[in-house]
């Protein structure tokens, strides 16, 4: 079945997305122009984008096992958005990247913030508090 969703978080830094993928054990494939999904729109959902473009991307992210569906990294104005087929959890994809790619998005934000804070001279520690990822940056 086809349940391709486009995540709303705008990815502005590909290096940080690569770092986030690696941190979760996912593989970022630079320049891969298609991503694995069901393969055709069967009209069972209301599409959030033109189904004719589903499966197309500028880069892709896959499981290290190279099984299951893949995440398409699609260039848009100002950055990139993530797109994938969520049917059956993307056949293992959501087990690693999180439902609606939550873990990947959270890790991406952590990578971006950590790099920015270190650039400003802060030392950064990270911990999980009530399910939330917390970065504590200190200097002085």
């Amino acid at each position: 079945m086809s349940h391709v969703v486009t995540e709303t978080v705008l990815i502005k830094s590909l290096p940080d997305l690569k770092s986030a993928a690696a941190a979760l054990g996912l593989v970022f494939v630079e320049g891969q122009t298609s991503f694995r999904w069901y393969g055709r729109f069967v009209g069972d959902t209301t599409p959030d984008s033109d189904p004719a473009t589903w499966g197309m991307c500028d880069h892709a992210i896959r499981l290290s096992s190279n099984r299951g569906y893949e995440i398409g990294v699609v260039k848009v104005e100002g950055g990139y958005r993530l797109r994938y087929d969520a049917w059956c959890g993307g056949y293992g994809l959501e087990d690693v990247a999180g439902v609606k790619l939550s873990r990947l998005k959270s890790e991406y934000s952590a990578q971006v913030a950590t790099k920015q804070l270190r650039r400003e001279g802060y030392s950064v520690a990270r911990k999980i508090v009530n399910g939330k990822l917390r970065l504590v940056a200190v200097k002085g």
Partner: protein
Amino acid sequence: MRQTITVEISEDGSDVRIAVEGVKGRGCLAATLALERALGLSASGKGRKLTDEYLAVPAVNVESVKG
């Protein structure tokens, strides 16, 4: 003076909260803005006050706490 910035990211990655301590005035705003830019956030047009919570787009909330 010791400066601390705490960034809390929700489990689903869609909610980011930034708290700044020990950084006064414009420095507090600058620190918050730098993180916002890095994270790809932008203010909603409601205006920005150091002690106000405001909605950022797309799909991310940012909370700036007083310095």
